């Protein structure tokens, strides 16, 4: 099965029209010694056999539907309303290309325009693009944008150690060829104030995250003023669900807001496809990477939408483009837009509050256990740090084996000083019973493993 419609007669007629005898004759430009290699691949399968095999493979996994999960750390198990999948499953959306022909792409274009509008509302920013690959690459692109706004004259980037470790790693990967000094996260723990004090006249930007990787809400008031005094840019990494409740970074004068949009209408999918949110100020929009949809009119004066400000992009500016990005995560942005519109003004707030109250209930119960301590000196939303009496890997092995629970993230993986600390995430999908089970299981772990 190769989804090719040709009958033998079709092939014969087509070959005759071209004037060759065999299909092989079309490949004479390929060096003969390399032509038609053998491919050692598994035998083809019918759809029925294939689905059976894939189903079996998928069932080797312990998915969050069967094993209650307290993992977050940048990928969140939020409920995705049924209508989201119904809409992104429409072939008119998912089998279309990038909307280069606006007359026959108004559906994609308008849905992106609406997504841009809602992201602006959410972040308090003026311009949002059509998306990046994920939160990490959006952060890296924000750094590159800050370097370009500084016209290449500033070579230092300051990052808080409380920014997601993988985002910080991707910033380093992206910029390894351009000779930057990246500071701030050499130590695992540094207050926002101390990180900000590293910003100087050679600094292009400061990157902070709120809620940060540890789930704590950062107080950004006054920060932008300090950063702008050094003529640097403030980049804020956000979780969009938190913005149902928390003050948007735009209100604190952030210059660029980025984030992982997976929580909006996109499932966990083992880490992708996700959604890089990217928003900035109008004054900087021409230094922004990625696609932008704008409103205009057609030849009859009727409202329509089109890709715009394209001169920033690779197909026009080539080596001087703001980025090489073309394909982004359009369908994920569509899902996010649908989810945001479905929740609406009230729903997003309610959702954020559900997460908040459930996480605080879980934190209080765990903190009451004699052998555990919740580090809650600062406010948090849906994630919090727990000091465990035994190594986190042992806690998690026990939780899964004995209770069928997927425990939290082992912070010792990235932060030496946080060995033995677990990052616990509680979203609206976790019923109270599962929280109580986790608490009971943790108590048991302390007794069984701790002995």
């Amino acid at each position, binding site marked *: 099965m190769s989804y090719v419609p040709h009958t033998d007669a079709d092939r014969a007629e087509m070959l005759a029209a071209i004037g060759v005898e065999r299909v092989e004759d079309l490949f004479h430009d390929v060096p003969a010694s390399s032509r038609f290699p053998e491919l050692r691949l598994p035998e083809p399968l019918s759809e029925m056999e294939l689905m059976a095999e894939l189903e079996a493979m998928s069932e080797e996994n312990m998915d969050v539907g069967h094993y209650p999960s307290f993992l977050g750390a940048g990928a969140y198990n939020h409920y995705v309303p049924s209508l989201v999948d119904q809409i992104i499953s429409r072939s008119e959306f998912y089998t279309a290309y990038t909307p280069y022909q606006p007359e026959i792409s108004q559906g994609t274009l308008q849905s992106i325009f609406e997504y841009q509008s809602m992201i602006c509302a959410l972040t308090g920013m003026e311009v949002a693009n059509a998306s990046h690959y994920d939160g990490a690459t959006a952060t890296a692109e924000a750094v590159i944008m800050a370097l370009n706004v500084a016209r290449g004259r500033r070579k230092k980037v300051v990052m808080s150690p409380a920014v997601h470790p993988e985002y910080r790693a991707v910033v380093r990967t992206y910029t390894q060829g351009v000779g930057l000094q990246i500071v701030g996260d050499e130590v695992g723990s540094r207050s926002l104030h101390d990180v900000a004090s590293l910003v100087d006249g050679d600094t292009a930007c400061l990157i902070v995250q709120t809620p940060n990787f540890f789930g704590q809400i950062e107080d950004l008031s006054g920060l932008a003023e300090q950063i702008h005094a050094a003529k640097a840019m403030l980049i804020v990494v956000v979780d969009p669900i938190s913005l149902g409740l928390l003050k948007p970074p735009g209100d604190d004068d952030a210059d660029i807001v980025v984030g992982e949009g997976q929580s909006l209408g996109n499932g966990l999918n083992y880490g992708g496809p996700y959604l890089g949110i990217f928003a900035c100020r109008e004054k900087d929009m*021409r230094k922004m990477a990625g696609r932008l949809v704008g409103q205009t009119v057609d030849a009859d004066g009727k409202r329509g939408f089109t890709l715009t400000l*394209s*001169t920033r992009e690779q197909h026009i500016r080539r080596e*001087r483009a703001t980025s090489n990005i073309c394909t982004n995560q359009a369908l994920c942005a569509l899902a996010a837009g649908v989810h945001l519109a479905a929740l609406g003004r009230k729903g997003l707030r309610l959702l954020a509050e559900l997460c908040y109250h459930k996480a605080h209930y879980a934190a209080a119960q765990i903190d009451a256990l004699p052998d555990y301590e919740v580090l809650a000196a600062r406010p948090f939303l849906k994630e919090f740090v727990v000091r465990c009496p035994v190594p986190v890997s042992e806690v998690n092995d026990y939780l899964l084996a004995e209770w069928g629970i997927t425990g939290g993230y082992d912070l010792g993986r990235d932060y030496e000083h946080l060995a033995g600390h677990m990052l616990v995430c509680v979203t609206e999908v976790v019923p109270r019973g599962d929280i109580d089970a986790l608490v009971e299981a943790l108590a048991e772990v302390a007794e069984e493993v701790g002995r």
Partner: protein
Amino acid sequence: MKLDPNCRYDQEHEWVRVEGDEALIGITDYAQDQLSDVVYVELPEVGDTFDQGDVFAVVESVKTASDVYMPVGGDILEINEALEDSPELVNEDPFGQAWFVRIAIADPSELDDLMDAEAYRAYVEGLDE
């Protein structure tokens, strides 16, 4: 094709109009016509310094971004902020309201490298053939 007899021209279609030690710089009527509808002009900052032949601005239509070169070297004294909100001025009045920058000329002898209006007209007519 409009020309300004008081300007000098380079081969990249920039004009320069000398006023004492200073000069105004813009792009020619021929250049704006080639570009079609100008949608944005990216200008340098006051205080920047460029040599003759350096790229100091970018002029954009919907589907192109073209560099603009310094016909003579110098320091940027003033930029035409009107172009920010009204890029269409480049199409409407390239020699007048759509000047790009005012500079302090670094070396007046560089002006000798440039064409006068008639030489530029002949140069452009040569291009079109």
